[in-house]
């Protein structure tokens, strides 16, 4: 089963494209729009000259460039200003932009070719101008929009894929970590060595320790997948875990579990509290020569259930794999409760660390 998870994980890693996931809209976009328009305008100019429309290629070229560029600018501006409005309004606004663009462009063209606006508009009616503008404008816009839609869809599909794979990967990873956390070999062998020793020196104590280990392993291992347990069951498991460490560490460990009976029946995801207790011992108390205390406190109010795991150990430090355990808990809280599940870390007073889990209460 472990192998399956590893293989699956590897496959996911290979599939995920290690690229930044955000889109960068740069000036390339705008530049491309203008260059396409320029080419298109030239084609129109040639086409009109063939039809013997207007005053020769040069004039047609200048005028059509002016009209085209002006339409293109108007569309780009409108596109930028109205990109988050409804599609219907967008289309309407784009048509208006095309009309304005064609008139402005025609005026510019008239000035540029030296014909002068008054003569120009005598020759071609405003209606003719706008109709032509709309016709060509629509073709250009359609061309651009469909291109953009295609690339946007592609990006979207890719993004969705990455999202799906990332979440799949996270789930697999956290499952794996959950599995590893439960059967931490160092813990297992050290505990068994203790039991072996106690069999010679204190048989009863040895039996108790073995029973605690069995209780811990049975509860921990049966909770690999996403099923729920209750606060009470989790606390029983943690008591067994603490008893084991109490034997191993002796005077160096003191602990106190203060969880009122009334919250014992509340359903709770498995193995969320245990890694925090493990951290408190492994990173807080074990490195400290004189050891210290672990306090576990639970409470509820109308909305939230709150669990605190505090230790008087060496406190916050940078090294160790302390971070991955915590981010695993965070990820699980987010996937289970969304924004409403939180893991908070604080400095404990007078020393050590305090971890707080807050989850919303299910209505009962």
């Amino acid at each position, binding site marked *: 089963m472990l192998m399956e998870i590893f293989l699956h994980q590897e496959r996911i890693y290979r599939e995920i494209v290690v690229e*930044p996931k*955000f*889109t*960068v*809209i*740069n*000036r390339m976009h*705008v530049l491309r729009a203008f260059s396409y328009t320029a080419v298109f305008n030239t084609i129109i100019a040639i086409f009109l000259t063939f039809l013997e429309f207007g005053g020769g290629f040069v004039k047609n070229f200048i005028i059509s460039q002016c009209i085209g560029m002006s339409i293109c600018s108007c569309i780009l501006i409108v596109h930028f200003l109205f990109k988050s409005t409804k599609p219907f309004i967008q289309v309407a606004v784009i048509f208006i932009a095309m009309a304005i663009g064609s008139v402005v462009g025609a005026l510019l063209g008239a000035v540029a070719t030296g014909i002068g606006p008054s003569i120009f508009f005598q020759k071609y009616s405003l209606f003719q101008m706008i109709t032509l503008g709309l016709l060509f404008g629509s073709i250009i816009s359609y061309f651009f929009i469909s291109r953009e839609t295609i690339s946007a869809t592609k990006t979207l599909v890719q993004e969705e894929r990455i999202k799906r794979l990332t979440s799949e990967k996270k789930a697999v990873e956290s499952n794996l970590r959950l599995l590893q956390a439960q059967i931490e*070999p*160092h813990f*297992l*062998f*050290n505990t*068994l*060595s*203790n039991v*072996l*020793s*106690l069999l*010679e*020196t204190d048989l009863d104590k040895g039996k108790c320790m073995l029973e605690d280990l069995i209780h811990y392993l049975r509860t921990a291992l049966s909770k690999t997948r996403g099923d729920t347990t209750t606060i009470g069951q989790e606390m029983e498991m943690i008591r067994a875990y603490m008893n084991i460490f109490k*034997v*191993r*560490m*002796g005077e*160096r460990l003191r602990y106190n579990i203060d969880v009122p009976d009334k919250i014992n029946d509340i359903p709770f995801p498995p193995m969320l509290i245990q890694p925090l207790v493990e951290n408190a011992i492994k990173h807080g108390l*074990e*490195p*400290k*020569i004189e050891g210290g205390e672990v306090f576990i406190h639970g409470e509820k109010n109308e909305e939230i259930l709150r669990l605190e795991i505090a230790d008087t150990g060496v406190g*916050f430090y*940078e*090294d*160790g*794999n302390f*971070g991955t355990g*915590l*981010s695993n808990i*965070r990820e699980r809280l987010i996937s289970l409760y969304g*924004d409403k599940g939180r893991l*908070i*870390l*604080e*400095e404990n*007073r007078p020393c050590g*660390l305090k971890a707080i889990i807050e989850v919303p209460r299910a209505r009962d």
Partner: protein
Amino acid sequence: MQEIKAIIADDEDQLRSYLKSRLSEVWPELVICGEARNGQEALELIEKHRPDIAFLDIRMPGLSGMEVAKRIVGSSWVVFITAYDKYAVEAFENEAIDYLLKPVTHERLGKTVKRLQKQIAASIKPPSDMPEIVERAIARLYKKEKPGYLRWIRAQHGDGIRLIPVDEVCYFKASDKYTLVLTKESELLIKKAIKELVDELDPNQFWRIHRSTIVNARYIAKVSSSLTGRGVVKLKDRPELLTVSRSYIHIFKQM
């Protein structure tokens, strides 16, 4: 013949007494002249008794077994003890360094003892250096080899101090001599200038986009560049837009 002395260092009482009783079976003449509960005590015992052999647990509070071994190098034969440390064990195997696995078995202890007896009888001196490969393997256990970028931000919150994983920070914003730390749901002030902060953060994840802004790349939803050459960053979990100044816009250009 002169008596041979040893010390045992392990932070767990049961494990020390277990090793001691196993040793008394396998090597009854060996004198255990002291037991240590942590690295510091082990060092003191070794200086006091000058034992021929030191049994050192790798993971101990205070000083690790490795650090003790480094300080007493050449004076005693060292046998490391570990419950399960894959990399360390591999290194010990490769370098023929003595080690014992917990729980200690009769057979294995017998082999180790025989080797020690042979070496001491032949008056071979303990090696005067610790192979680098072993040091590295054990450093790996404690993950101390990489200097590491900042992973946690300590910030005043109410009347306590809160620890925030840097992964959760959306962006940092300079605010006089202080820096504002903005996460999805909170805004905290830390007493560190953004100039210092930028060197401590992982440059692959945290990008400086402005004289007064460092953004977490994971929280960037979109970057658009204005025609004036500046950029605007839209964030994933926060409403505000961040400005990319002209001198940093090149970060986004390469993509």
